[in-house]
């Protein structure tokens, strides 16, 4: 009798789980491409991370510890797989790994995959992530678009097969190299790619397959990876991707048979589908937290912090004055600002002291954030909560503004525009807070807030026409270098926008990336942070948390800030549905 009751209870519990073998994730983007050498967006990368595998992977929840995947061991100096000079990395390749077509994965496939990732080099793609450490260049082409002389020979020499091992030799020691291989350079099957019209791995053909037109690449909607799931269908019409469990996966078959990733634009529809059990996880922006917290059968996993820098206020150092309404008259006459307005440190510190950091976190982020302590994402080498933060102090702001430009700024006032990309309600409120505080100091101060569409934002950014803007860096891989370089180096992404260049910063960042001793590296990043705090090239404001919305029957989710599309995306191999 007891057994019968237990059976009834179990079957009732099981009956509550809708579509127990199928996991459905509703999101707001559809994958750009499933080609690992093309994809540079989180939606595509999320699928790639489930159907392909990388040489290494980050342990769940960790930003520092790696575990082997296609590589049988994580290279380290201790196990002799990293050479003494820090330039040569040896990857023993795991045996018994099969591609989805049933063929064995070999060291030659690994070598081919790394070469293909670098040489593919489509404009704006991810190839520079490996080109920089392995070949010491950021592009395979010169300024005229011609392939660099001798590049293929250099690449061939840098990535070699030695028996069942792959050896990669870098141009210089590059501390984040393993971290990059845990997120990029997925292993593809050389024979399969060639058979499907892709590069055949020969020198003669690489230029033809480099920087192709999108419609000419054969891997956008097909795959033959070795991951726990295989692509069943990518339906551009219904905007859904269906993955089927790969039973030949080397770690054993995943618990769930099928995964559906679907674009549903409207939040209310996503919510209703979650409520009805037709979805297991949905993408929900922070402001929807209240609407989801009371939905029966749904749990919110809160306080998750992604691999991203704090929201930061950036200044443009060499503003383009030609036909630029964002700087008014272009002179320090109260009706505008000069193009080098932000060269004066007191102006920057005046802005820094006018930001009410705590009010922003408390009232706008609804407490789901924390004060910025430098530029790095939490958990990275060099991040320390003891790093100094700027404070909201209007008296101090007044002092700085009075000192700026030899007192002329206070006397004449200024007018300029703070601009950001639209559809960011939190940033709109933040910028209005900054405007209110700055304009309260002196009636001659005028800060206009302007939200623009992405296309306009691009144009204005490219033309160095935006004097002040808000942004943040989403990490490519979990290493301080990726943040320090892009936020503070003269060759980095934000320097390109803000024309910031400082030799001290560049030297420190270049030194830190080549330092393989963890403790010494940490010290260098702390030094950099101190330098940045004093110089104030830009103002880090606050880091934010996100939350994941899922049905309670979803089990096994392990948060990893590094995983693509985190925390909404999942490594499906870990998941199962249980009532």
């Amino acid at each position, binding site marked *: 009798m007891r057994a019968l009751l237990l059976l009834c209870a179990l079957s009732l519990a099981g009956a509550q789980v809708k579509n127990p073998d199928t996991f459905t994730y509703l999101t707001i983007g559809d994958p750009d491409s499933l080609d690992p050498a093309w994809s540079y967006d989180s939606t595509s990368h999320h699928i790639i991370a489930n159907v392909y595998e990388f040489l290494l992977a980050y342990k769940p929840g960790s930003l520092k510890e790696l575990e082997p995947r296609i590589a049988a061991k994580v290279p380290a100096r201790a196990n002799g797989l990293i050479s003494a000079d820090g330039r040569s990395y040896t990857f023993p390749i795991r045996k018994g790994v099969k591609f989805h077509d049933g063929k064995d994965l070999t060291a030659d496939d690994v070598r081919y995959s790394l070469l293909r990732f670098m040489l593919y080099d489509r404009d704006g793609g991810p190839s520079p992530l490996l080109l920089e450490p392995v070949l010491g260049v950021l592009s395979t082409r010169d300024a005229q678009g011609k392939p660099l002389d001798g590049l293929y020979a250099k690449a061939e020499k840098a990535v070699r097969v030695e028996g069942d091992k792959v050896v990669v030799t870098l141009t210089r020691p590059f501390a984040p190299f393993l971290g990059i291989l845990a997120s990029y350079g997925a292993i593809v099957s050389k024979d399969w790619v060639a058979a499907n019209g892709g590069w055949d791995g020969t020198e003669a053909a690489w230029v033809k397959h480099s920087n192709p037109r999108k419609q000419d690449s054969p891997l956008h909607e097909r795959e033959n990876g070795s991951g726990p799931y295989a692509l069943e269908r990518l339906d551009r019409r219904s905007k859904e991707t269906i993955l089927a469990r790969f039973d030949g996966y080397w770690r054993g078959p995943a618990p769930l048979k099928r995964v559906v990733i679907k674009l549903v634009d*409207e939040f209310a529809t996503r919510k209703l589908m979650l409520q009805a059990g037709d979805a297991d996880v949905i993408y929900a922006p922070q402001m929807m937290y209240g609407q989801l917290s009371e939905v029966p059968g749904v749990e919110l996993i809160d306080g998750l912090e992604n691999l991203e820098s704090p929201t930061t206020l950036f200044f443009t150092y060499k503003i383009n004055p030609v036909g630029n309404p964002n700087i008014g008259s272009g002179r320090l006459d109260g009706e505008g600002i000069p193009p080098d307005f932000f060269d004066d440190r007191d102006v920057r510190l005046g802005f820094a002291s006018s930001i009410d950091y705590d009010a922003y976190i408390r009232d706008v982020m609804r407490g789901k954030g924390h004060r910025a302590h430098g530029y790095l994402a939490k958990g990275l080498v060099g991040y320390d909560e003891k790093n100094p933060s700027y404070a909201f102090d209007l008296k101090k702001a007044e002092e700085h503004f009075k000192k700026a430009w030899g007192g002329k700024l206070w006397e004449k006032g200024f007018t300029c525009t703070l601009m950001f990309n639209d559809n960011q309600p939190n940033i709109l409120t933040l910028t209005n807070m900054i405007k209110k505080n700055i304009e309260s100091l002196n009636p001659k101060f005028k800060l206009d807030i302007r939200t623009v569409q992405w296309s306009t934002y*691009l144009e204005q950014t*490219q033309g160095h026409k935006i004097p002040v803007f808000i942004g943040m860096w989403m990490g490519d891989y979990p290493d301080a270098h990726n943040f320090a370089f892009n936020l503070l180096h003269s060759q980095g992404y934000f320097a390109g926008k803000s024309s910031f260049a400082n030799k001290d910063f560049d030297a420190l960042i270049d030194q830190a990336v080549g330092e393989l001793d963890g403790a010494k590296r940490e010290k260098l990043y702390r030094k950099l942070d101190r330098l940045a705090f004093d110089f104030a090239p830009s103002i880090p404001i606050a880091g934010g948390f996100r939350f994941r919305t899922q049905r309670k029957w979803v089990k096994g989710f392990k948060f990893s800030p590094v995983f693509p599309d985190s925390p909404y995306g999942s490594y499906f191999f870990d998941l199962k549905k249980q009532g």
Partner: protein
Amino acid sequence: MLRFVGKRLALLPLVMLGVTVLLFALLQFLTPEMRAALYVKDPRQLAALEAIIQKHHLRDPLPIQYWSWLKQVLVGDLGYSETAKMPVADAIRAFFPATLELTFAAFFPILFIGVWLGTKSAVHKDKFVDHFSRFVAITGYSLPSFVLGLLLLMIFYGKMKMFAPGRYSLDVDLLVHSDEFRHVTGLLLVDSVLNWKWSVFWDVAKHLVLPSATLVYISMALLLRITRSSMLEELGKDYVRTARAKGLSERAVINKHARANALIPVVTLSSLLFVGLLGGVVITETVFDYPGIGRWGVNAAQQLDIPGVLGSALLSSLLFVVANMLADVAYALVDPRIRVQ
């Protein structure tokens, strides 16, 4: 009549060409950097912006860009839509059947209910049915479609678990993409019958209920009011009085005489409505997660996907011209005097 149809069809390429020239002229206002936004999705790609502009010839003068696009079109290549992530011709083939299905599901109820209720409303002026139809028209016309759509979804899906969003359910999704299902027309209601898969038919029909109900309620209002006013005008005319004096039944007077004459403005409006529905109903498609052509067209416009915008504009102009032509044919059917002229 055939000559008339032939003349209209001959004008079609000219109309479509005019539409594309106009669109290209409007694009003169956008800088190459703005148009590059289509290819630069991530801020990390900014460093390569100039290379992207060069690669896609965005700095070429627009007449040159137009000419190379036109040359492609003349050999049957409408280009590649970055928003649909497929060639434009494929995108039209992929999205249009779903919209056509939704249009048919909504248009005929709109037509029948609108004309019927409009007639009733005119015949029973200031009675209950007239007040009721006025209420329907006012609420239908003023209610935003996303409000009505979400309301219906909340009641019939959220509470009653009856009509889910999307074009079909997961089981049917797998079935229609399996080898045992042949896609003949792209219209799933038709294809399911041809494949003798009634489970697919009912599932697809169920998924059409809420989006078409939303469209019927929203779009019927204008037709209803036009029918009513047109009928009221006709019912006051001498020939109606004469027909009644001759002893014709009220039903014959209304249906055979007055309504036949009141249909001219209704036909005009119906053709516009039909084209409007075929062009895509973005909000309804978005709320009900319905994969129609409207969402693609709007996405293409928002992201400055020029081949996508031109492709959907070509389709819209084609539909518009064809629908107008059909409306002219319908005029002739409704009123023989037009045929004689």
